[in-house]
């Protein structure tokens, strides 16, 4: 007798065994008996669209055996809402599963659905996410969820100190840089309307722009070859009037074309190539691109040569 077939609670249900479409199905999995049985009962209750306590516990049983089962998660959410269960209790349970299955993303969609039933952010939520980031500070699903959370509960003003602590720990954490962009700039952009170009054209408060430029520059000084703050800095400069030229002196601290053996950042060279080109100093721009192609970033030599081509310069041969 199985866990379900032998249970009084389930006596009225006729399980639906898996249909494999014929003999020798492809990629057939040797399920455990427990899993096979639970799935047969799931097919049966789903076919009946049953929303009950026993269905809820069945979903839990299957999720523990296979947390990547999107159908079970979605069905669980349906049952959960139909029964008007306590969302805080569900979060407690989710926390345990999430820490165990770090790469799973059904969990995060489910968490979001549950969270919509809670009027204000539970005090345990941010500490739990911090725990997730301790295990993987670049987890894409967790960061996506955090963005949703910030927007949903309007947590904009409290994010920067936490992000600062993450970047102090690892200034190369690009996910943290992206989140900083999100709370500082995307806050004012509707994610569901317009085009990317519309969003890019929105200018920001000059004080905030100045603050963010200083922030990125300070982080670049810690490790000038770290691309994340350079990307951030370039983005910030577009949020003010005027071009990239404002970064010229700063970038030249790390890449002086007169001392080509002492370049400390290929990203500074890349930026300078754009600055010089915008200032009509094509020769200087070409020189920066040549240094990148020949010496400082030769795996991308085709790209640097393409950029030289855009300036009307001939390509650099590198062998």
């Amino acid at each position, binding site marked *: 007798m199985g866990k379900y077939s032998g249970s009084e609670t389930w006596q009225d249900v006729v399980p639906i065994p898996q*249909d494999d479409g014929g003999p020798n199905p492809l990629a057939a999995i040797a399920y455990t008996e427990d*899993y096979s049985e639970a799935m047969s009962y799931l097919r049966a209750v789903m076919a009946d669209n049953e929303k009950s306590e026993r269905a809820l516990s069945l979903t839990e049983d299957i999720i523990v055996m296979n947390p990547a089962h999107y159908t079970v998660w979605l069905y669980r959410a349906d049952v959960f809402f139909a029964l008007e269960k306590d969302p805080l209790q569900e979060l407690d349970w989710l926390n345990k599963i999430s820490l165990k299955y770090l790469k799973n993303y059904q969990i995060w969609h489910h968490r979001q659905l549950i969270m919509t039933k809670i009027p204000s952010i539970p005090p345990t939520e941010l500490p739990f996410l911090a725990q997730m980031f301790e295990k993987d500070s670049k987890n894409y699903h967790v960061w996506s969820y955090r*963005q949703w959370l910030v927007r949903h509960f309007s947590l904009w003003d409290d994010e920067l100190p936490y992000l600062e602590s993450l970047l102090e720990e690892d200034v190369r954490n*690009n996910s943290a840089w992206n989140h900083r962009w999100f709370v500082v700039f995307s806050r004012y952009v509707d994610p569901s309307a317009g085009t990317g170009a519309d969003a890019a054209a929105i200018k920001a408060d000059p004080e905030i722009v100045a603050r963010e430029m200083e922030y990125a520059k300070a982080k670049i000084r810690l490790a000038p070859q770290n691309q994340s703050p350079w990307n951030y800095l370039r983005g910030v400069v577009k949020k003010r009037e005027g071009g990239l030229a404002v970064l010229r002196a700063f970038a030249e601290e790390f890449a002086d074309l007169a001392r080509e053996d002492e370049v400390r950042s290929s990203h500074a060279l890349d930026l300078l190539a754009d600055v010089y080109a915008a200032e009509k100093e094509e020769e200087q721009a070409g020189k920066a691109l040549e240094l990148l192609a020949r010496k400082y970033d030769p795996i991308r030599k085709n790209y640097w040569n393409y950029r030289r081509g855009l300036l009307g310069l001939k390509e650099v041969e590198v062998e």
Partner: protein
Amino acid sequence: MDDPDGPNVPAIFKTLPPIRDSLATETSWMQDETVKECLPLLAGAGAGTRSLFDYNEHGVPSLEREKHIEYLHERLGPLPEGFVAFDAARPWLIYWTLTGLCLLGENVDRVAQTFTPMQNSTGGFGGGHGQISHCAPSYAVVLSLAMVGGHDHFDIIDRRALWKWLGELKQSDGGFRVCTGGEEDVRGAYCSMTMISLLGLPLELPPEAPARAHGLTSFLSGLPEYLSRCQTFEGGISGAPQTEAHGAYAFCALSCLSMLGSPQEMIPKYIDLPMLISWLSARQHAPEGGFAGRTNKLIDGCYSHWVGGCWPLIEAAINGPKHAEEPNSGSLFSREGLVRYILACCQQDTGGLRDKPSKYPDAYHTCYVLAGLSSAQHYSYYSNAPPMEGLAVLQWRSSQEIRKRNGQLQRAVFEADDRLVPIHPIYVIPYAAAKAFQDWFASKIRF
């Protein structure tokens, strides 16, 4: 400098990058570890684990074709209990395996009956029998059937029901959910549009599609705008507006745009192309040669496809349509670097391809590493042959001839025997499979 006695491996693949910051963090530590595990394998004979005879004159090992074929056949099962995590993704396992086998030149059959119980009468396929329809397994089923071929197989798909179900996924902001009640992201859009274009489904939204209440009339309504909102301040493309730029989503978004019109027209219209190219290009690392998926992340063999597969689309966006006889205009990335990384670092001795040397192979990586290798071995271009009706996906052609910007032939560092079957840059299946499939549905008067 090359070692005069050793194989001809350029210094760039044998030495650390010229600029390295002294500040150590978790990211730089992991990067250093990755370089450390790749360098001996990239150095060619002498330092690696293979015998001298496994390398060609460029210091590149050969493709273990037979072992990979055997590995893939085993992935078609029966699979042990531990694979239960794939119980909602069996169509993926099948798609990855078939794609790998097709690229290696193998024929495959025996698919349709496995998929039949996964189809729901309300349209679409789930990951298994009794599972709700989801665009990812549906995409995998459709492409797998295309690879297996045969009209009987094609006709198991209930296209009208599929069309109705896809209508439920379309959202008022222009994007697609991955399933009813599921998340909305760029995968949803790419998988849905792939099915719509391959199966010749009407672009008009079904009458009962909820998005109609918001004034949308077509699957294409608001879609390119949605995709454009996924470009981030870094220049790359994220899974949903405002999340972090990521290589896999870049491929999905660019492919999707390239289904809506010619890449030259669609991509620059909705994407800041110079920023995207800069971001994509920065994903290739040296000395490893492979691609990473995000800024400051590690290289992973699967991005050979997700990032590597963006280049034909980008090149078509820059260069416009080409004649077959026209010389190509040079690559924007290092094909040599990618081929070296794949052949030297991604092959498991016992068969299968992997993320990086310290990881085990699996069907997913085997599929996308091989797809990346195929794309690095061929020049894919958008042809200016007379356009077909409908979506712009059958205009792609491929050639074995790869040239530099100056017109000279690019030397290949792999052996002629190691060339794979060319892969369609949008559908990620062989060209012939896509064509036969699309022709069959185009020939149908009723749907």
